[in-house]
């Protein structure tokens, strides 16, 4: 078990108060459903299991349960890196929806994180999009700014804006209008193998406090044991890369723009700042100077780090609470001595807060997904069955299902999910959940700009690859990335 005092760490957290204000500055429409100012693992435990919700009855107020219609729906579904538990919940959700709304003909399609954006963009060009879509948090602003989405706010499906994290609502707001509802919100945590730490001469129950420590620990693990220290990920066109590099960039005081401040304007490009370069230098030191991270980091995704970690060949990584369950699933599939080895790794798995930068800044990507309704002109057949779309959105974003669909890997978009009995059950069954809920207040949303997907999925990974392969120096790579962002924002070709 992790021995760090998480509640205390949260309180001691030196993340800027401005950031907290940014995440918690929802205008009060009434009594806050969950008091975000009290947010701590203890508070989360105290509200879990305190309220019952009747999802079908709630959604019947939005769309009658006997409503007859047809709905096409695409969503970012489970993929190879997710635990089996989550697969079951996705299956259960669609079965329950069909039982609850037996007269809605649902045609759903699951796509992986890395494929969904490309396919959705292509479908939009041909006016062949689905009526409703659940997109990664990066996508909302892009499609809202282009006019593809219908305005949609929590009140439209029976909830209140206050039921959702203010930071998450930012990602579905464009030009003052809300275009979607958050389904889940996630912040990752720092995971390490205590046995590897011990064998490398490190304190097995203490996570590295700073990113400089991560660099040192990674080297020490590699030099002493000959295995990879930290699970760096720098693949292009993969969401895993920004989710792991941006916390490092922000912790050092850098950023793409000023997205880590309370009221970002996204005017000043910060990728070439000394702080951003220091963050990039840390990655360079691990990959090139110390060779203490997987060589395959440039083509790897997090799903490739998981088996490495389970095989005891990787000391530290950033990931979800679900990784513990993924490890259990992988262990079940192992055979012979591999099974015992995997069990040893699971027993030695520890979770902690993501390290801080040199000035004590702690940050993590405020991730998740949102659900949207398309305008009819972009949908196959030119019609959107709005009641049917609202029915599925009401169900998915309900306290019950927003919790269940995020059971192992994320957190419910609807804050009332934290009050359900399933949250209580989850706190007991999902190990290390406290750590990731503790990271939520440190969450920084990606810049709410239509250009964000390109910046995060292409320009930032390119910067890493240019520096790590030696194609450019650290300075040149950062300057080049800053120039690309500048050109992009200026509408360059």
């Amino acid at each position, binding site marked *: 078990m992790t021995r760090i005092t998480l509640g205390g760490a949260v309180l001691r957290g030196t993340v800027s108060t401005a950031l907290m204000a940014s995440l918690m500055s929802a205008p009060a429409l009434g009594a806050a459903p969950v008091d975000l100012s009290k947010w701590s693992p203890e508070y989360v435990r105290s509200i879990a299991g305190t309220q019952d919700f009747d999802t079908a009855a709630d959604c019947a107020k939005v769309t009658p349960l006997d409503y007859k219609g047809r709905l096409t729906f695409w969503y970012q579904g489970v993929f190879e890196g997710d635990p089996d538990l989550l697969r079951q919940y996705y299956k259960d959700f669609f079965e329950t929806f069909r039982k609850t709304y037996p007269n809605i003909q649902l045609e759903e399609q699951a796509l992986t994180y890395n494929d969904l954006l*490309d396919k959705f*963009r*292509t479908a939009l*060009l041909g006016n062949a999009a689905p009526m409703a879509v659940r997109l990664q948090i990066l996508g909302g602003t*892009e499609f809202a*700014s*282009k*006019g*593809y989405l219908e305005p949609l706010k929590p009140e439209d499906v029976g909830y209140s804006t206050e039921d959702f994290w203010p930071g998450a609502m930012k990602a579905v707001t464009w030009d003052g209008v809300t275009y979607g509802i958050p389904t889940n919100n996630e912040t990752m945590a720092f995971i390490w193998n205590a046995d590897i730490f011990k064998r490398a001469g490190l304190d097995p129950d203490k996570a590295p406090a700073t990113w400089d420590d991560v660099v040192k620990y990674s080297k020490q693990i590699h030099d002493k044991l000959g295995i*990879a220290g930290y699970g760096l990920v*720098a*693949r*292009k*066109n*993969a969401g895993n890369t920004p989710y792991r590099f941006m916390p490092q960039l922000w912790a050092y005081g850098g950023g793409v723009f000023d997205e880590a401040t309370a009221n970002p304007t996204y005017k000043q490009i910060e990728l070439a700042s000394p702080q951003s370069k220091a963050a990039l230098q840390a990655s360079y030191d691990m990959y090139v100077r110390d060779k203490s991270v*997987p*060589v*395959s*980091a*440039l*083509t790897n995704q997090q799903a490739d780090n998981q088996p*490495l970690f389970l095989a005891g*060949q990787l000391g530290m990584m950033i990931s979800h609470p679900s990784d513990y369950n993924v490890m259990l699933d992988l262990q079940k599939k192992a055979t012979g001595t591999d099974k015992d080895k995997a069990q040893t790794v699971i027993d030695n798995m520890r979770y902690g807060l993501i390290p801080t930068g040199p000035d004590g800044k702690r940050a993590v990507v405020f991730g998740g997904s949102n659900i949207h309704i398309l305008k009819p002109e972009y949908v196959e057949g030119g019609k959107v069955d709005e009641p049917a779309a609202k029915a599925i959105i009401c169900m998915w974003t309900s306290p019950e299902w927003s919790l269940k669909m995020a059971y192992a890997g994320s957190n419910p978009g609807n804050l009332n999910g934290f009050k359900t009995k399933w949250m209580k059950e989850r706190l007991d069954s999902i190990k290390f959940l406290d750590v990731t809920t503790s990271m939520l207040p440190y969450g920084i949303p990606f810049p709410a700009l*239509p*250009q964000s997907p*390109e910046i995060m*999925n*292409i320009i930032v*990974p*390119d910067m890493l*690859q*240019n520096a*790590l*392969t*030696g*194609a*450019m120096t650290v300075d040149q790579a950062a300057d080049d990335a800053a120039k690309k962002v500048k050109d*992009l924002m200026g*509408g360059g*070709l």
Partner: protein
Amino acid sequence: MLRKIWEHRADYAYVLPAIAVMLIVIAYPIYYTVELSFFNTPPGLQLRDKNFIGIDNYTAILTSEVFWKVTWNTLIWTLGSTFISFVLGFATALALHRDFIGRGVLRAILIIPWVISAVAASYIWKWIYHSDFGIIGAVLVQLGLADRPPNFIDSVSTVLPSLIVVNIWREFPFAMIMMMAGLQTVPDQLLRAAKVDGANAWQRFWHVTFPHLRNVSTVTILLLAVANFNSFIIPWIMTGGGPSNASHIWITHIYELAFGRQRWGVASAYSVLLFLILMSLGYFYVRALSGNERKDGSA
């Protein structure tokens, strides 16, 4: 001419549906791509809000560093894959042309890389090459031939050759099949006559076999070149064009520009340039085929 068309109106009516389909699925996309190549499509705007910018996309492409890097990669990829696949396929076809026990089985085994899915092959090779726990690296380390696994696809200097090896592995069976078919057209009596005249094995190959294979060789090389110029699956799945654009070839770069970065205008301009290059290759292909027909007709 109009009279001729009128006289053959029934024939034209029969092919009209096919022509209509071709116009819709081939001609229109080509026209639209050419049109789009003269527009700017900023990421914050819908495609219908595009701005006319004349030849700026073409100018931007030809003056960009990435274009020349990607073009160089494409040339290495296409020429390397095509030449080596052809030579290897030809050599294998010659070896399998002779009768020996197990020839049929060997032939079937050698065709496997060509018939399995390119996607599956790419994933398998990605793991074979894996820089940390790939099988090649593990074997080399176990045998004491290397201190640490070689870096195949995570290095800018080795990634392209490594991908070319995979491509050759996948497509040399195609060259082999084509050349085996060609070898069966070489008249036996000519080879026997050459042997009687004292020609050695090399002379029989060079003066009898090879001239008969000239046309099939040309067609095979052109088909391989076109396929390689258009390659997408192997580089995209194995590396996504990385690291640091070192394995980006035209098609993967166009895909990234269009679908990853939504630069539909620039991507279209690239596509037009690619289309022109492939059309020239197509011209030589048609010429090679019609050369065959003329020869066949005169024989």
